């Protein structure tokens, strides 16, 4: 009945209204009128569009379109072996300075003391085939909580920047550990680290 009276855009508006539900009672998963409201707001936030096509008795299609340039993010800019990389700040707990001599070796792993526990280190230079730094100190950013915490070691954290995340759309430029690229205003491209992929890699090794 309803779809006969309302066009699909209006119907979508109704479905996305906070608190609107087609159920009489809420269960554990659904029925509170939250879901579509959240979807709608998430799509809006990413500057995408959502469309609804529906036929009574046949089903509904929700089409979500998102722009390729998805977001602006706060990032740390780090240097490793003479190259710069951007690290989305959202996943970074802390930046620490490590003295070379304080790194301990356990089999193939390198570990430092961090807040009373052992923190495994991933050296970006080795993953990426870049030269190691020469200084007596290097920087590391800590990602993951509690026992999952790992330190990703770089030569130096150079600074912070607000970056526009761009996709590496061609397969020739897609490699593990890199999630995208950004341009820092000087026309040069800086690659964005895929922190979750890097930490997964360490766990596989352990």
């Amino acid at each position, binding site marked *: 009945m309803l779809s006969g009276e309302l066009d699909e855009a209006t119907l979508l508006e109704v479905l996305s209204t906070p608190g609107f539900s087609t159920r009489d009672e809420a269960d554990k998963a659904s029925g509170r009128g939250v879901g579509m409201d959240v979807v709608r707001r998430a799509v809006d936030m990413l500057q995408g569009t959502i469309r609804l096509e529906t036929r009574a008795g046949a089903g509904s299609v929700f089409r979500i379109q998102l722009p390729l340039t998805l977001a602006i993010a706060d990032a740390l800019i780090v240097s490793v072996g003479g190259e710069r990389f951007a690290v989305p700040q959202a996943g970074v707990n802390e930046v620490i300075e490590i003295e070379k001599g304080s790194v301990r070796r356990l089999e193939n792993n390198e570990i430092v003391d961090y807040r009373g526990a052992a923190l495994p280190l991933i050296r970006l230079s080795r993953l990426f085939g*870049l030269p190691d730094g020469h200084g007596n100190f290097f920087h590391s950013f800590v990602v993951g909580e509690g026992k999952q915490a790992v330190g990703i070691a770089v030569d130096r954290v150079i600074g912070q920047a607000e970056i526009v995340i761009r996709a590496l759309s*061609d397969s020739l*430029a897609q*490699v*593990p550990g890199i999630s*995208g690229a950004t341009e820092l205003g000087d*026309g*040069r491209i800086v690659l964005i680290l895929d922190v979750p992929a890097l930490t997964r890699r360490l766990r596989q090794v352990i």
Partner: protein
Amino acid sequence: MSDEKEKTESFVLFELAGTTYALPSSEVRQLEMIEHITPVPNAASTVEGVVYSRGQVIPAISLRTRFGFPKVPYDIRSRLIVVGLNERVIGLIVDSAREFRNIPIDAISPPPEGLAELSGPYLEAVANVGENTILILDLAEVIKADAREIIIAEG
């Protein structure tokens, strides 16, 4: 008949290790000077890195490496030929590129079998223009990801 004889195709000519190559103009978006190329760790050996070109981050491939020629440092004649094919946009690094030329279709023939070395798999045709022989490339083959190299990069 006379129309047939005058038919030409437009190509962008470029040089690599002393040989002249050509790509159909329709596949070439623009020529650029080579500025900063950001290396991509663990990418295939032909991928020199990525560059920022007209709002897009595109891979830059060394055609010298692709064809098995030794690498040389970039100089003021080095160029990035930005090509587009089926949604893909890629930069090809060449020794120099200066010329557009219309080549009569009559002058274009399939590559002789004796040329099967180096760029052999990437050749589409050969054009004889005056004294010069120009090798016309098959862009799809040139930018095809090398399956073997990808496996090594991920390993």
